[in-house]
């Protein structure tokens, strides 16, 4: 490797690039770190000015997030000493735990709806993309454009028709309704992304499998799917991030049984003052699944994002 090589950057430029990346990572990580730290602060620390970077950590935010509390008389408090560590935290404010909050339920709703719609989008998207990629479909280009056109306006623009339609169909505030809605929004992205990935897989692989005695579906399942894993993984992450973070429709269409975490977290603010540590705790927990999902698929994601940039 000569000193003029194009492929091997010099030490100085490597050092420079490394510093830039670290700097960028720090800047983007600060809000995230702040949220996570706030989750372990006491309410007074959370709103203190100047902001406290060093503080005494407490699980108060998490306890408040998962419980509902009521104020009690001194006699009651004296007669019933706290039995658990989390009750002790609450007692400092002369309160007792009345029961679990709705957060767990809402979080579970998010998981069901987010992963459900992601699975459905990927399932339908892969089949559709395969069909568009491999078969002669009449008006294929027009159909593809039609699918894409569903994303040409912000989804919220059709909120009122969807609201009315969902009320008529009884889909309001149901898991199924939200899964269908997020799938409808994600499917165009899924079909277009996956079609690109499947187009890149040479047909010869399937043809070889057909010749080797497999049916078209077996060839798809055993040869095309493993090849498309990269594309499927990165598409799944995009779909999950959308469904997981979606706020507007969730506010509009859910209130009870199918409410997801995003519209729930802000409601914490209203309960007994501005409880920032509880909000931060909720946000932290809410971040985890997407983070874990992305870390699990990160190998594929990197390849997915740079897909097509390099000729095989």
């Amino acid at each position, binding site marked *: 490797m000569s000193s003029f090589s194009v492929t091997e950057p010099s030490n100085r430029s490597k050092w420079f690039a490394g510093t830039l990346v670290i700097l960028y990572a720090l800047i983007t990580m600060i809000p995230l770190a702040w949220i996570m730290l706030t989750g372990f602060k006491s309410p007074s620390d959370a709103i203190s000015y100047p902001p406290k970077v060093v503080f005494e950590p407490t699980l108060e935010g998490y306890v408040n997030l998962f419980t509902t509390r009521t104020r009690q008389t001194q006699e009651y408090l004296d007669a019933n000493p706290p039995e658990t560590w989390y009750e002790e935290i609450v007692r400092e404010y002369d309160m007792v735990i009345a029961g679990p909050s709705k957060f767990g339920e809402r979080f579970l709703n998010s998981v069901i709806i987010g992963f459900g719609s992601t699975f459905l989008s990927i399932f339908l998207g892969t089949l559709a993309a395969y069909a568009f990629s491999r078969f002669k479909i009449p008006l294929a280009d027009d159909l593809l454009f039609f699918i894409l056109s569903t994303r040409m306006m912000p989804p919220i623009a059709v909120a009122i028709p969807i609201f009315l339609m969902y009320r008529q169909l009884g889909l309001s505030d149901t898991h199924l309704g939200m899964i269908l809605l997020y799938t409808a929004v994600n499917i165009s992205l899924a079909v277009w992304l996956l079609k690109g990935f499947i187009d890149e897989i*040479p047909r010869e692989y399937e*043809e*070889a499998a*057909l010749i*080797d*005695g497999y*049916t078209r579906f077996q060839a798809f399942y055993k040869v095309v799917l493993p*090849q498309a894993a990269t594309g499927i993984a990165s598409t799944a992450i995009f779909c999950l991030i959308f469904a997981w973070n979606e706020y507007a429709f969730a506010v509009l269409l859910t209130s009870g049984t199918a409410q997801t975490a995003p519209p729930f977290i802000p409601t914490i603010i209203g309960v007994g003052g501005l409880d920032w540590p509880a909000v931060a705790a909720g946000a932290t927990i809410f971040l985890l699944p997407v983070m874990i999902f992305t870390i699990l698929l990160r190998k594929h994601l990197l390849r997915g994002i740079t897909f097509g940039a390099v000729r095989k």
Partner: protein
Amino acid sequence: MAQIRINNIRKDFGDFTAVKESSFTIEDGEFFMLLGPSGCGKTTTLRMIAGLELPTSGEIYLDGEEISQKPPSQRDIAFVFQMFALYPHMNVRKNLSYPLVSQGMARRDVKAKVEEVAGILGITDILNRPVGGLSGGDRQRVALGRAIVRDPKAFMMDEPLGALDAEFREHMAEELRALHDRMGATTVYVTHDQLEAMQMGDKIVVMNNAVVEQFGTPQEIYDKPATMFVADFIGSPSMNFLSFEGTVAEGATSVDMHGQAIGVPRQMQGDSGKLVFGVRPEHVILSDAGDYRGEVKATEYLGTTQIITLDTPNGELKARTGSDRIVKTGERLGIGFEAPKVTLFNEGSGQALRSELNNKVLSHG
């Protein structure tokens, strides 16, 4: 092992006709070449035999059984792709096992069969390697292995040497031919390389513009071309075409070119108008005497032989002679032809006129 009979097969892709009513028969155990320029329909024909495309009309018989509309999995035909198409997510052993597993063969038998085939092809030591890192030749061998592992009735090969570099091609061509001779399996091989076709094939079909131009042994196709296209496509340099206007009577043994009577094989078909006198470079005889003369334009030295390009009254002519003959550019030489080896064509239709030379070939083709 099997005979393949193609009867009036046709393939349309929308308005485009890839293959027009073509018929030919591939005998059991033959190494059969489908030869033609790119886009002539040879690959489509091959894919129809394998079942990767369904013909628009016509029949394909494999051992007497009509298979043209059957899915590929029910045809028992193996296919070797130009780009090999090895399953990239599997190692060599899995690639070879795959066709056997699909037939529901027992695991132990699969293992034994794979080892046997790997032994034949000399790839035993790479069985556990992923296919990604293999060299072109090894990929080619694995692709062949995947084809032969289940003892199919016939092999289809779509330019299997096209992806290899020139040096290795020759070696692989020999290996392929040796493998065929050892197994005796009916093989259909698509190529655009006329040399490869002549070298390896028992029989050749020459296709152009979706039609079969000629069908026969390499010798027949070289010596007795049925059309001007075949005459031009086969051979390097290709056949000379000297155009002239005149009349050829049935039974004639010479034609009149530029006022000279030039011998041809006894004609069995009369024609008149624009005709073409076709002669291979090696059938041109140069001499100092003779009334039909041409001027030397260029010479090309090829070692044992040389190609001499001459300007004649009827067009450019290339002659192949021994390289010991010294010829200067601008020299005028007498030109003679080996009369029994000449083919006359009708310039309009491009078809050869029937003569004693090609009568047998033309009547069965």
